[in-house]
């Protein structure tokens, strides 16, 4: 299994500002992902964080709004840019070890 940590665990931000979320894995992994989860809803994939190349975004998510970095095989960041109250959500990172996907504890974001 993989142990994944995220920082910050929660934050309250003003609209129009940006927040960068960090994700650290305790071992080198090939695939890392970023998800969003609205309260009471399932997980929605934002993008695949590719090491050494640009992230692959899902439909409805764009790089200008959610820039992602993946500088090495254990670390990734997601920035939520120019935030609005609609961005209030839980943001989760994940990584594969073997055939299984493991998740960080999430970042609870509230935008006022």
């Amino acid at each position, binding site marked *: 299994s993989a142990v994944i940590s995220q920082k910050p665990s929660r934050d309250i931000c003003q609209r129009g500002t940006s927040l960068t979320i960090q994700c650290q894995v305790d071992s080198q992994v090939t695939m890392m992902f970023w998800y969003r989860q609205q309260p009471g809803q*399932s997980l929605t*994939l934002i993008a*695949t964080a590719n090491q050494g190349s640009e992230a692959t975004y899902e439909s409805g998510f764009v790089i200008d709004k959610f820039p992602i970095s993946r500088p090495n095989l254990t670390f990734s960041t997601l920035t939520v840019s120019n935030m609005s109250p609609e961005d209030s959500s839980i943001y989760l990172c994940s990584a594969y070890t073997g055939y*299984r996907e493991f*998740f960080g*504890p999430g970042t609870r974001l509230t935008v006022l």
Partner: protein
Amino acid sequence: GIQVEQSPPDLILQEGANSTLRCNFSDSVNNLQWFHQNPWGQLINLFYIPSGTKQNGRLSATTVATERYSLLYISSSQTTDSGVYFCAGGTNFGNEKLTFGTGTRLTIIP
């Protein structure tokens, strides 16, 4: 992409009861995983089970790949089993993005 349906959406049980959660897929999957999201939001990987049956303590899972469904069994429920159970599928054998179902919210009453 594949569609994932889970049933029932909600389940309330007394402690000690058994339960069966179901996951249906719109197309064949080679990667099927079950997760438990506890009341604090942490997602725990329960099983990687693209076919066959696996057991881990009081939990077991069965996937019938040819009929595109999977079942999660929870026996002798405990209050710590409460939370949301998600199944997720993909078309490769791992190391790929998954499509998550809508989840089953399980509440175990002491």
